[in-house]
């Protein structure tokens, strides 16, 4: 595990120079797989280090990678910069107009004491020649990455009017085959860029899937097996305490947990006596209420942001498609009609779009799509054959999903407009089942 984290860190150092897509990959790296130049052109000058030895983090690189990954910005290459200011008073705006930057990020990191740093940054409007925002932070070395993500969030907000989602966490599952042929599963949590990964659960030969963050980001629900004698069950784990429990004992198996927006209920799938339907469970009360009742498979529930509806996957009309039902139950309405299959849908924060796994037929396999319930349109964002498990960033600007690179499962991020797509490639086994937390 330590080795993995080390490799991860090392790789992200490599990833930081991702401006050169040809650079060789080690254990984990961001590979730019797609990206046209049509975002806002932004320059980010190197953060000036004012201290002894080497700077503890390359903040500029973290911020630049965040902004690029969102798909909204084109980060101009530092090789073209004519000067390297670290503060507004040092900026010659014409240097930046010449390279057609619309915005410029400048910053400093100053050593204030043992393991104590001050970080400052300013976001400048190059054409209006003024400061859009400037902030100062104090942090220890371990907090510097988080400071960089907070800077990215602030810049994102100033430039787009949308709250940033870089200072957030993700969960995912890795599977590695041991030398003895065992399947070792790890449930991991990490920063939104894959850094600072930590294992929170490890099982041997007992699959782990479908992690789901509680709205407050403090708990994870997920599916696993307690032994080889019982079917799947939904577990609830308190992340900081490290305690876990099955949410309930079911007559049959339970899976596909989805938190209601108020965090009080879990929608889940219960398979009992051969029938698979959606239920709603009171997390504290333990009260179980059946939401759908159909001999077909009903699974993968997800709540609308206002908590009034749930979407789910059902094959009641033959192939799997997306349906919607009131949180009070009643008749389910079919939403998707295009494509051969659609599954695994979840809402964006506005409730106007769904991200899902779509199979368009003709042997195309499974890609990630964004579906607009009002128009019935689906935009296909990816081009894999086994893409799955899409999850919106909390601000709806990006989608994290699982895809394949050869035999291995890897995580990838695509901007919600499909313009920029990056793979977080790992050689440490099979990576799958990402979930993006709504809050840190």
């Amino acid at each position, binding site marked *: 595990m330590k080795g993995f984290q080390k490799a991860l860190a090392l790789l992200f150092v490599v990833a930081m120079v991702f401006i050169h897509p040809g650079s060789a990959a080690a254990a984990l790296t961001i590979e730019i797989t797609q990206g046209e130049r049509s975002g806002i052109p932004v320059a980010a000058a190197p953060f000036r280090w004012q201290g002894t030895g080497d700077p503890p983090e390359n903040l500029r690189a973290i911020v630049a990678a965040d902004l690029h990954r969102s798909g909204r910005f084109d980060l101009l290459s530092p090789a073209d910069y004519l000067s390297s200011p670290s503060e507004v008073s040092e900026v010659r705006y014409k240097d930046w107009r010449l390279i057609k930057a619309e915005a410029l990020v400048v910053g400093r990191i100053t050593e204030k004491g043992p393991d104590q740093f001050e970080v400052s940054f300013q976001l400048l409007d190059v054409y209006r020649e003024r400061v859009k925002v400037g902030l100062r932070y104090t942090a220890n070395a371990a907090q510097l990455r988080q400071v960089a993500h907070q800077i990215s969030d602030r810049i994102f907000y100033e430039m787009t009017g949308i709250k940033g989602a870089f200072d957030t966490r993700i969960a995912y599952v890795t599977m590695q085959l041991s030398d003895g042929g065992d399947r070792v599963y790890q449930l991991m949590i990490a920063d939104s860029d894959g850094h600072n990964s930590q294992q929170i659960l490890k099982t041997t030969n007992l699959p782990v899937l479908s992690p789901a963050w509680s709205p407050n980001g403090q708990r994870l629900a997920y599916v696993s097996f307690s032994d080889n004698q019982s079917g799947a069950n939904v577990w609830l784990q308190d992340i900081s305490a490290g*305690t876990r429990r099955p949410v309930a004992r079911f007559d049959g198996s339970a899976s596909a947990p989805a938190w209601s927006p108020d965090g009080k209920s879990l929608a889940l799938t219960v*398979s009992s006596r051969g029938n698979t339907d959606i239920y709603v469970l009171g997390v504290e009360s333990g009260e179980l209420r059946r939401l759908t009742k159909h001999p077909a*498979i009903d*699974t993968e529930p997800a709540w609308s942001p206002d908590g009034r509806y749930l979407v789910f996957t059902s094959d009641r009309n033959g192939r799997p498609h997306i349906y919607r039902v009131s949180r009070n139950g009643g008749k389910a309405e079919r939403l998707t009609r295009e494509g051969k299959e659609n599954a695994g849908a979840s809402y964006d924060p506005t409730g106007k779009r769904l991200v899902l796994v779509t199979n368009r037929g003709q042997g195309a396999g499974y890609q990630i799509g964004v579906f607009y319930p009002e128009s019935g349109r689906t935009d296909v964002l990816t081009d894999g054959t086994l893409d799955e*498990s899409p999850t919106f960033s909390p601000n709806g600007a990006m989608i994290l999903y699982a895809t394949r690179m050869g*035999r291995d499962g890897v995580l990838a991020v695509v901007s919600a407009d499909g313009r920029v797509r990056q793979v977080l490639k790992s050689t440490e086994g099979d990576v799958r089942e990402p979930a993006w937390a709504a809050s840190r």
Partner: protein
Amino acid sequence: MQRFWTILLVLFLGVTLAGCAASKKKGGTVEVEDATIDGSGADVTTGASASGVDSDDATAGEIIIIDQNDSDVDDPLGQRVVYFDFDSSNLTPEAQRVVEAHAQYLTSNPGMAVVLEGHADERGTREYNLALGERRSNAVSQIFQAMGVAPDAIRTISYGEERPISMGQDESAWSLNRRVEILY
């Protein structure tokens, strides 16, 4: 020769009754770890960790090799796995024959417990495949029950696409992974 295997079978019936349908899979283990945001707790194993059951690898489920050395290689009881078409839980005629043979065997040996383990190939979402594996194992369970196997003696478990037999990514691999394993 036939008599030898019959004796062996009876012996293992005893093991099965005692072991109550232990799976042939290796035992699972679980470690829960806490994780504070600063990462300092990442190596600490805390309470609530649960040890999985270490099931004996050498159980009846694996060792019954009836008639393997006899001429009747077509004995459906020798087949422990039935296969399905893509996104289907309908039994093929061949699968039907195998399932019925096991059902007959189980009805004439009341008291035996059987686990029906449903699996799917990797296409489609993991959760849908978990439900599909459930439906497949239930399809076999329905035939068992229709033929008189006590419902209490049957347990269905789905692993969805999580435990593939073949790691390949083509139809020949997928066809091996869409299956129900009959374990007793």
